[in-house]
């Protein structure tokens, strides 16, 4: 099972995990890191490092961050490696896709899968309806 750490501004990650659990049930091996206005970068680094260790089941760890270019991403990207992948722009679809495939998919494939799920979940309703006609 691939481990998961969700790193977001404020408690967005905590709430996102709660929301996903509402849909898929309890999610195991997940940790969250909340980046607050007063969080110092080196404290955040230490917190992410601890979270990765906590959820690591030796099948790799995925870090989800809320926005490319923000502090959660910038700090998380430094952990990128053979056993750690970072995917930015987390949303509920990404969380659910992850929870449903983390047991059977290897890290790299899982990353592509969740990216696709997240991107597909952004639609403009009126345009989607027009396309159907």
């Amino acid at each position, binding site marked *: 099972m691939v481990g998961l750490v969700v790193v977001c*501004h404020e408690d967005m990650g905590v709430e996102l995990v709660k929301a996903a659990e509402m849909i898929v049930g309890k999610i195991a091996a997940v940790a969250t890191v909340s980046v607050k*206005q*007063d*969080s*110092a*970068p*080196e*404290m955040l680094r230490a917190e992410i490092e601890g979270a990765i260790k906590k959820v690591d089941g030796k099948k790799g760890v995925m870090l989800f961050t809320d*926005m*490319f*270019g*923000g*502090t959660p*991403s*910038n700090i998380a*990207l*430094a952990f*990128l490696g053979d056993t750690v992948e970072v995917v930015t722009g987390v949303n509920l679809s990404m969380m659910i896709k992850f929870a449903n495939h983390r047991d059977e998919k290897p890290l790299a494939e899982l990353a592509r899968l969740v990216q696709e799920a997240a991107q597909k979940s952004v639609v403009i309703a009126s345009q989607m309806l027009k396309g159907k006609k």
Partner: protein
Amino acid sequence: MALFVRIDDRLIHGQVVEGWVQYLKATRILVADDRVAANALQRSIMEIAVPQGLTVTIGGIEDICGQVRAAGENERAILLFSNPTDVLRALKSGLLCQSINLGGMRYIPGKRKLREVLSVDDADIASLRAILARGITVCIQSVPNEKPLQLTKVFEACSLS
């Protein structure tokens, strides 16, 4: 070069890229930080983490000061430092500025928290005092739509002036 000098321990991040860059209509970000300049991974993270059309230059303190002097007059740029001691070094090596934006020096153990985004140790206090003694205005302000707060007022309130 129209230069906006900021102290922020996160260097390039959302508040800078989404907030200040838009507000100042800056086209360039300069990062003066020896530690980041020496770390290839950190450097590339910062270089890719900005919108298109924005140039990012990362270098050691003295290197960046040289680039500021050499830059074109019409350029609008944000110059980022992670701490006031680095700013003081830059001032000593010829950086000219009248005001400094204090965006974030966040709490780590061993520092004293003065404000939400301002925590200091003795070295920070000494450097900030030396900057103020040069007649430079230092204002605490994380994002453009927040009211700036004079550092001297905070120092007075915390019996540090």
